Structures are given as structure tokens and as C-alpha cells.
């Protein structure tokens, strides 16, 4: 099998490319590798979901793209490029961050500054990146608030974060992230703190905004349902590695990595109430005790001798990759 890497190679369409990205945290003399050789790319206008359970490295990957990891306490290796610009270089990153890449965080309450009005915070972002005067930035901020369906944006402009509910604040975050018309929006668990009916509103809004502005979306979530409804492609991460990458529709029908299959099967789907749910036995290996071979091996029911060797991300076809050497032999169950 030739390592044809259609996805991570610099193609015409690629907006963001991650290649061999490893993030390590430094704690005194110890150096702990959190993610290993993360590679994927996003095309223009594409919606990509990264799924995985807590500690799999999905947020760390987003922080690495945005250069938000603590300097001096972390090391990012590999290549992160946005339209050919190297994001690991701070000068180039600063031209892109906030303007061409917008970010939405999980907890709007802690992501917004409590002592400035929400309007001023959006307005500041616009002034920072667009070289416009206060009056123009104010008008644009009000427009951005209106676009995320906040009623009376003129009045709301002068509200402080504490005056708004969680769902409204997440709308403000979306308005801020999209205010400079970015080419890519990174949303890290944007609806996890919200109720299900509000989550539906926010996902709906986010999808529409992204679609109407033609931006690409990188959505990080632990909720496969959210990915299924919002994204066209998905990446599964496990213990700091990308283990599967493919079209959402294809993976839901036929996952090609046992971990993705396991995640899908764990979800109660109402078919057999009170029946025992399939679960994944064991726990994620610690970052200090990662095996040389397949990191999912100790929890995998298909474990074979060959799994003791290092597993590379292999191409099943031009659209689908998996980090499972047995993928071609296994018949894993999808949910659709």
C-alpha cells in the first residue's frame, strides 16, 4: 500500500493542513507527549468534526492551531499551515488568528470579559483586524449581533455578559468569531454547556452562518449526534492519535476503526429499552504508559498479534483513513 496522502498533501483546496503535529507539555524536567503525529486537513467551506472522549487530545489540537498553548510549557512539533502560511510562526499566526480563523469556546461565560460590554468586545475584535474607526466597528458589531438573531441588537450592544443567558452568550461568541468574515471557524464543544433545545438553536445558527459566509468549520465535540447532524467529514481521536478520518455518512454506515465502532454502539438508541448496552471495557492508557503498538489494543475485542506493532494511518480509499491494520478484515457494525 503506497502512502498516498490525498488529505494532508498540499492540494489546491486545502485551507488548513496539519501534518505530524505532536504536542508535548513540559512539567519541570518531564516532557509528556499529549498528541502524536496528528494529521488531517480541511478544505474550503468544509465542515469537519473531531470526536473523541475526554483526554484524547482534541482540544489540545485546536489550541495548537490557534497558538493558545502556554508558551514555555508546551512544545508543538510538526507542520500547521493555513493557506500555505506557517501557523507555528507567531508573526504569521497573528495575521490569521481572529481574522481569518475565528474561535468559539466551550464556556462563553469564561471566554467573554465580564467588565466590558458584549458589543464593545465584538467591536474591539473588528477594530483590531479591519482597520476601521469606532463608529464603523460599532455598526458592524450590531450587524453581527443581528445576524445571530439577538433581538434589539442596538440595546444589547451595551449589555454586560452577566446580563445574558448561556444560550445568548454563545450567540455573542458566534457573532464575535464571525465578525471579521473568517475563512475557518473552530468551535470547541460549543453546545456542551447548553440545554438540548438551546443546543438545537445554536447548532442551527452556527451551520447557517458558516454556510452563508462560506467559511469552513472545525467542530470539536464528544457528541456523535452533533457531528452527524452538522458535519460532512469526521476525525476520531483516541489517546492523542487520529484513528479514523472519513465522510460522516460512510463512517456511520460502516466504521473502519474498532474504537469508532465502539463509540457508536455505546449510545442508547431507543431500540431495546433496558437491554444491556455495549460498552468498551477498560480505560484509556495513561500518557506515561502508551504501548508501542495499537493504543486501543488493550480494550479491543479484535486484538491480534500484529496489533503489537506500531499502527500507521492507512488509506482505505481517497476519502477514508484508519489506524487499524486489521481494518480490511474486520466487519464492524455501523448504526445506519
Amino acid at each position: 500500500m503506497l502512502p498516498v496522502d490525498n488529505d494532508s498533501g498540499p492540494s489546491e483546496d486545502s485551507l488548513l493542513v496539519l501534518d505530524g503535529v505532536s504536542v508535548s507539555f513540559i512539567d519541570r524536567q518531564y516532557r509528556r507527549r499529549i498528541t502524536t503525529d496528528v494529521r488531517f486537513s480541511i478544505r474550503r467551506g468544509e465542515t469537519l468534526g473531531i470526536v473523541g472522549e475526554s483526554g484524547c487530545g482534541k482540544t489540545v489540537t485546536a489550541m495548537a492551531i490557534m497558538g493558545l498553548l502556554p508558551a514555555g510549557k508546551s512544545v508543538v512539533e510538526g507542520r500547521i499551515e493555513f493557506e500555505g502560511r506557517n501557523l507555528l510562526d507567531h508573526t504569521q499566526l497573528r495575521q490569521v488568528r481572529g481574522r481569518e480563523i475565528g474561535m468559539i469556546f466551550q464556556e462563553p461565560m469564561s471566554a467573554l470579559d465580564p467588565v466590558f460590554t458584549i458589543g464593545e468586545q465584538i467591536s474591539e475584535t473588528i477594530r483590531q483586524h479591519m482597520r476601521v474607526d469606532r463608529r464603523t466597528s460599532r455598526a458592524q458589531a450590531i450587524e453581527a449581533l443581528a445576524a445571530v438573531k439577538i433581538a434589539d441588537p442596538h440595546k444589547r450592544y451595551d449589555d454586560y455578559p452577566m446580563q445574558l443567558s448561556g444560550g445568548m452568550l454563545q450567540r455573542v461568541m458566534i457573532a464575535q468569531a464571525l465578525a471579521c468574515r473568517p475563512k475557518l471557524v473552530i468551535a470547541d464543544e460549543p453546545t456542551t454547556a447548553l440545554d438540548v433545545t438551546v443546543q438545537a438553536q445554536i447548532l442551527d445558527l452556527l451551520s447557517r452562518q458558516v454556510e452563508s459566509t462560506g467559511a469552513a468549520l472545525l467542530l470539536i465535540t464528544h457528541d456523535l449526534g452533533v457531528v452527524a447532524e452538522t458535519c460532512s467529514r469526521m476525525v476520531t481521536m483516541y489517546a492523542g492519535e487520529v484513528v479514523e478520518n472519513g465522510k460522516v455518512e460512510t463512517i456511520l454506515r460502516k466504521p473502519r476503526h474498532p474504537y469508532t465502532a465502539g463509540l457508536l454502539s455505546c449510545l442508547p438508541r431507543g431500540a431495546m429499552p433496558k437491554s444491556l448496552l455495549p460498552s468498551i471495557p477498560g480505560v484509556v492508557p495513561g500518557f506515561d504508559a502508551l504501548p508501542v503498538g495499537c493504543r486501543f489494543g488493550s480494550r479491543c475485542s479484535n486484538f491480534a498479534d500484529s496489533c503489537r506493532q506500531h499502527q500507521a494511518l492507512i488509506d482505505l480509499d481517497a476519502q477514508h483513513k484508519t489506524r487499524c491494520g486489521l481494518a480490511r478484515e474486520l466487519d464492524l457494525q455501523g448504526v445506519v
Partner: protein
Amino acid sequence: MELTSAIGAISTVEDAEMPKTSGAAIRSPVFEVRELEVHFRTRTGDTMLRAVDKVSFQVHRGETFGIIGESGSGKSTLARALTYLTKPTRGQILQDGIDPLNLGPRELRTHRRRFQLIFQNPDSALNPRRSILSSVVEPLEIVRGQRTVELEGLALQALEKVGLRSEFALRYPHQLSGGQKQRVNIARALVMQPAALVCDEIVSALDVSIRAEVLNLLIGIQAELGLTVVFITHDLSVVSHVSDRIAVMYLGQIVELADAAELRGRPLHPYTRALWSAEPQLSRSVAEGGHHRVTLQGEIPSPVTPPSGCRFRTRCPHAREICVEKMPLLREPAPGHQVACHFDLEYPDLFTDGNARLATQP
């Protein structure tokens, strides 16, 4: 479910202090909630927050009663009231037919052991400075006055029941994963040989693969011990999976109550319908045509100043004048299916037809 199996393997030691269930108690529901109200004074002191407002329902022996609602719906306050951690402002909760407020302090102490609450956050529910064994033994120790080898044996049996081998007993909470900690909390409730467990969002903090394990454990234990379970959550797929009956709460009130399958397949309240349709689905997006989502406007209003009339009217797509004027009471349009709505809303097929037929009640 056989009542005799209610005496599980952990009850090897007869305890004279443990209350015996009388014949009368067995016939009565485990929880009978009558017009329950729980109010809190707000910080400024001049307004009341009606966290639970005139709620009535019964939980039958051996069933799993699901309570679903969004934040601010009053479901956690209800959980605390069911175990008398919060006193009702008005109304009554009978446990096994007994009103605990009529019991003397001694009787109350033995009585309330039979109704155990398990909390959402497994971390804050365990003392980080106590070993697992010591945390599980503690409630028994309080009952008996001192810690004995016999009690430690009971605690070890309870831990085994939740799938934690004895080697876990001397570990500390920080050495355990979230799922394991939640198992410890379940074991700690089980050592008291409860009649009922009130589970408040016990799997919300867990990852999906771990969540499945804890749910399996709960379902297994319930079947084995014949426990009654009140399962409170905001997670729709989880509540449908574990529950026999489900109550839907909105702003301190029950708006719909029905058999789990009935509620899922034929919801009558517009809020229930909106909840189900808001749940992100794996399959519907891929299936042809997708599904019709009812997107609600706005968010749950403040319980300090609830809307007049129907509390859901500010977000309801079917709201009319009567909804502003009159609060709908729970009525029973089908046997065992209660709903608090002025209208008879029919949804011919929830997942394919987005248009509800709207008919006023005769």
C-alpha cells in the same frame, strides 16, 4: 419483579435496626408526591423562587421513574425533596406510605436510610482523604456507632456488587476513573439496603463508553435487588433507555407523564415534542429526507417570574390567548398518559411529518 428478591446478597447480616417493610407499606407506592411545592427566598429576600410548584405523582415499587427537564426545571430540587434533603414548603411526600415529617428523630433516622440519593459529580461526592472502603463503610459506621470487621465485610460485598474488586478498597478517589468513582457512590448507597435510589444526573459527567457501563450496572442491580429507581437527567436517550415511565418537567411543573415508549412515540405536549426533536440523531441525518426539527424560540424563563397561564407559552409554537389567561392542569387524555396543555395536539408521525394538527379541546 419479585419482592422477595429485594433482599439481596449483601443482607447477610441481620440488622435489628434496619426497618422492616410492613405489609401495608408494600402495597403503597414507594413515593407518593402530593401537590409538592418547594420555594426558595431569593438573595434580595423580597421574591420567591418556585423551584417545584404543585407537583403530584406516584412512583411504584420496582419501577424506574425517569424525570427529564432542562436546567432550571426544578428536577434536582425535586430529587433533594424526595430524600428530604430539602424540606417541602407545601404539600406532602409519602415514602412507603409514611410521611417522614410525622416521625420522631429516632424513627426518622432509620426510616430515611431506605431512600438513598446519588449525586451527579462523582468527585465532589467522595471525600478525597478517605479510602474507598472507608467511604463505603461510613454510613454503616454512623448507624452502628463503630466500625467493625463485619461492617467492612458488608462494604466489600457492596463494592463487589458494583464490579470493584477488593483491591480497590484501599485506594483513594484520585486513583480511580470517573466511572469507577460513580460505582463507589452506588455501592455506598447500596450498603444501606435501600428500597429506592434517587439518581440525580449520575452519568452526565461520564464519557459515553463509561456511561454505558454505569447504566448497565444500574439496570442489573435494580433487577437483582428489586429496587425502585428515580432517574433524573437531561439526557433524552438515557432516560428513554432506563425508564418505565417518564415525567417531563418545565419551570417547576410536570407538563407530561406517560409510559416511556408512549411518551417517545406519541408525545402530547409541545415541549416534549420539541425536546425529542431537538436531540441530535445519528441515523435521521443519513436517512432520506432527514427529520423535521421543531426549533423552540428563546430559553426557559426565570422561575422567579414565571409567565402567567401556561408556563411554556412564551416558547410554544401553538400558544393562543387562553394560554396567557389560564394555567393548564394535568389531565389524562389516554389511560396513564397525563398532559398539561389546553389543546389536543396530534402528531401523526413524529419523525416524518412536521405539521401538527391543532384542535381545541372540546
